[in-house]
């Protein structure tokens, strides 16, 4: 069986349907374009695992679980232009969690959500120019706040 080399102790089974292509990479990782969106095995977290550098993986969460009022507005033209507008469904919105100090502090990057199109298997990190949403929205550890 083909497997993904990941940070997890055991190789993760690779499924073509889990592949997500990030044409632009992600800020800080601009050269990495091939990822797999995999179940972390621990709800409600997902894992976005680089298929090019096994040590690179992001923990993702549905932002609406941590911030029910969360919203982003992106012009359809931009979604299409950036290659994630195709398909019949809206892109999946996920945010990256940052774990610091052995996970005693967890924050979510609400200002730069990931938009994932499962049908076309493409994704982008969308940076919101408005600073209404925090890059380090506290999820746990340093006390919650309303968003």
């Amino acid at each position, binding site marked *: 069986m083909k497997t993904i080399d990941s*940070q997890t102790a055991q190789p993760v089974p690779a499924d073509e349907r889990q592949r997500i292509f990030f044409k632009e990479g992600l800020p800080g*990782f601009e050269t990495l374009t091939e990822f797999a969106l995999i179940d972390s095995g*621990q709800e409600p977290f997902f894992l976005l695992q680089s298929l090019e550098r096994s040590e690179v993986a992001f*923990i993702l969460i549905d932002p609406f679980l941590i911030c029910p009022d969360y919203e982003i507005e992106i012009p359809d033209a931009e979604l299409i232009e*950036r290659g994630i507008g195709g398909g019949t469904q809206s892109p999946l919105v996920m945010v990256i*969690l940052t*774990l610091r100090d052995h996970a005693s502090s967890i924050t979510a990057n609400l200002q730069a959500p990931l938009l994932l199109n499962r049908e076309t298997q493409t994704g982008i990190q969308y*940076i919101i120019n408005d600073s209404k949403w925090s*890059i380090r929205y506290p999820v746990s550890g340093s006390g919650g706040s309303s968003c």
Partner: protein
Amino acid sequence: MLILTRKKNEEIIIDHTIKITVIESTNDHVKIGIEAPPSVRIFRKELYSAIENENKIAGVNAVSSLKQAHLHFDK
């Protein structure tokens, strides 16, 4: 680096499609207007750098921290 001197309302054209206008300049503040195709993404540098830094912290050792994270999230 190319350095140009521009006065208020003077413009710069980059690559035929990107137009930069000096709208206002007072003391150490410069207000700049940018017209560009939608495919050109424009950010304040400090915002882009902040996202880069956050991604770099978030993208390594993520899995090894996940189990601890789960405990905290379900508190």
